[in-house]
């Protein structure tokens, strides 16, 4: 048997393993000609109640509203008022100002870790405006924009990042892993994609109770490779759960490009086709398109027409986190050459083209926001910064493991308090 196989093998082609490789590495000249960027306004907008299959072409297309002429085009134009557009612009700019200040705070040793979302502000801020306030957001770790879009106090965010005595999560969570029930923002896990089945469960529960709230979850494109992603979509499809799955395709998962999550064969939105649910692929740097797509999916879910998978096609303009050095693995030109531009600049230019905004107003707004953020961080520092003593009392470490303190945690709590007197005598 083995002998026959060996003989037959002589004529067979040698198998080879394909290991994906990004197009550009450090030092490479960047050319994004391979990216199909369709005309703004050219994509059809099916009715929210359409059969899921009608969205199949939109899973590989790219929904765009803002054209290179800075005007809004086509059926996906949400026709927002100038006031609403200015609000979205302001909140995106606030996210950027917040990120800049918090990044600096990490470098100054005031906290251990921070994650920016530069270039992706529309995927959280504009998307959140497409939802109702009562809808539950199941975020990943780069959705600070969802909190800001729901007017969550910046001071609470900084207290959380500094893990100080005013951190309402009692200094337990890594910086930026917020929880904000007051604005319907679910507690963030560090384990990837776990929030997706949970969002499905929340949406199913809402449907079981005959409620009208829906659930919207965010996940990075890299995390779509997790089993939880597929469990979540299976359940959502099976029970027609009123859920939205936002995949933020920012091209990079730390140093692994989107090819390692399967982007070489098809889009992430196209995964919807296999589940028989609606799918939309959206220019993630176009705040109007992001808003319109999220609103479409929300209306669809709310009218019992089921879940939607949205891919926001965007670019992570900065490193993964304060612990990352993107210059080691990607071309420095990528950010500058990204063909879909910057979401804040695009909305700014649109408002200017409408005659509703000016360069001066924008500069003044940026100044105001930087001051607001600085004021807030100074206020937060009064409550302490990481590792400088102003933290929650030790006994809180043992709270909330269970609803009630069992004997072993009671004993361990007493131990921690005893040790304190030895380690830190007053």
């Amino acid at each position, binding site marked *: 048997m083995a002998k026959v196989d060996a003989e037959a093998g002589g004529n067979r082609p040698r198998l080879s393993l394909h290991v994906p490789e990004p197009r550009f590495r450090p030092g490479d000249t960047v050319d994004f000609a391979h990216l199909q960027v369709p005309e703004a306004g050219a994509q059809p907008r099916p009715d929210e109640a359409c059969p899921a299959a009608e969205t199949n072409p939109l899973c590989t297309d790219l929904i765009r509203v803002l054209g290179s002429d800075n005007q809004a085009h086509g059926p996906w134009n949400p026709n927002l008022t100038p006031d609403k557009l200015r609000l979205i612009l302001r909140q995106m700019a606030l996210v950027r100002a917040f990120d800049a200040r918090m990044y600096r705070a990490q470098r100054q040793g005031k906290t251990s870790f921070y994650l920016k979302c530069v270039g992706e502000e529309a995927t959280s801020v504009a998307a959140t405006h497409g939802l109702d306030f009562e809808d*539950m957001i*199941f975020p990943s770790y780069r959705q600070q924009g969802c909190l800001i879009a729901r007017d969550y106090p910046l001071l609470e965010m900084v207290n959380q990042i500094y893990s100080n005595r005013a951190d*309402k*999560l*009692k200094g*337990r*969570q890594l910086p930026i*892993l917020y*929880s*904000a*029930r007051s604005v319907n923002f*679910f*507690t963030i*896990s560090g*384990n990837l994609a*776990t929030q*997706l*089945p*949970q*969002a*499905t*469960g*929340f*949406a*199913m*529960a*809402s*449907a*079981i*109770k005959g409620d009208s709230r829906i*659930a919207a979850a965010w996940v990075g494109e890299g995390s779509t490779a997790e*089993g*939880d992603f597929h*469990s*979540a979509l*299976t*359940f959502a499809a*099976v029970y027609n759960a009123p859920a939205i799955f936002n995949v933020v395709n920012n091209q990079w998962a730390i140093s692994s490009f989107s090819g390692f999550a399967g982007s070489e064969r098809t889009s992430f939105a196209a995964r919807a086709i296999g589940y028989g649910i609606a799918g939309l692929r959206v220019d993630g740097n176009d705040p109007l398109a992001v808003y319109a797509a999220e609103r479409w999916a929300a209306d669809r879910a709310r009218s019992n027409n089921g879940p939607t998978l949205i891919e926001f096609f965007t670019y992570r303009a900065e490193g993964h986190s304060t612990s990352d050095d993107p210059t080691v693995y990607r071309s420095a030109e990528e950010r500058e050459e990204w063909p879909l531009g910057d979401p804040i600049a695009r909305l700014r230019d649109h408002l200017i083209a409408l005659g509703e905004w000016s360069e001066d107003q924008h500069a003044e707004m940026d100044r105001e926001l930087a001051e607001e953020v600085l004021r807030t961080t100074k206020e937060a520092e009064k409550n302490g910064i990481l590792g400088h003593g102003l933290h929650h009392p030790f006994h809180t470490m043992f709270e*909330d*493991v*269970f*609803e009630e303190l*069992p*004997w*072993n945690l009671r004993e361990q709590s007493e131990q921690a308090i005893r040790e304190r007197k030895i380690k830190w005598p007053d």
Partner: protein
Amino acid sequence: MARLDADEDPVSLSEAPARDLNMIEAINEALGIMLERDPDVILMGEDIGFFGGVFRATAGLQQKYGKTRVFDTPISECGIIGVAVGMGAYGLRPVPEIQFADYIYPGLDQLISEAARLRYRSAAEFIAPLTVRSPFGGGIFGGQTHSQSPEALFTHVAGLKTVVPSTPHDAKGLLIAAIEDNDPVIFFEPKRIYNGPFDGYYDRPTKPWKGHPGAKVPEGYYTIPLGKARVAREGEALTILAYGTMVHVAEGVCREKGVDAEIIDLRTLVPLDIEAVENSVRKTGRCLIAHEATRTSGFGAELSALVTERCFYHLEAPVERVTGFDTPYPHSLEWAYFPGPVRMGEAIDKILEA
């Protein structure tokens, strides 16, 4: 002599008429009562709806409470647990079934990293009040994929409660308490004793639950608090710490050998009734720990450490463990693997002779 600690239960059992039920019937009754009492309770799992579950634990419940309260799920343990966490966050009390404990592993991350820590990481903004029911343990020729006892994994995780009933009476009261509990609970059902109190003598006919004191199940609602052990048998010679099927194996051995052992049925591993353990071991001075799971790093190791730490000066013999072997459960050799009367008898002799 089995003894029910009726006087310690919050609801007096004496007034409610009791019938003899087997453990499946008792579990079914508990689920039905909770579906009736609390509109936020929902059941879900593979084959649990129309069919009523492969062990029939949910039989008739979908027909009575409807498809949105009791429903089948895709074959995805990660999905079942993850969805239940989200439902808990909404405000429901989901009771997911994992068809066999051996299949709980694809759902582990959702249990360990999510359900267990939701309260902690959100400072109690969100909780996961789910009760994961799952048949566990061997002795039914289930081979290495239908026989495992993974309870120790869960007891190691901060934030999870682990419950194992050993009688129909306890199964009903503990399950109701678990569903009402605001923390995530893993409820392991010893499937070998679903239909009768198996005493470990595999070569003898199995007795049905009928007539067993633990099969007297009061009608209606009652709870048995989590964290409260039961003295299954009073004695002076040694203490046997056991749970699930092993309580009955211990009872059988003591009966056969005429050993005056005190058997503590732990009922819940987390929270553990440390007082009941300490009181008994201090009284008898000798301790044997019995579980079906593999030995190394099993829950018996934790019990042994606790007994040694807290009762050392009362001990007159080293603590002994009677457990499964450190191998997967072998299909054809399961009675060689099972920690039955021979293994337990030897351990008892060793302790008493020391």
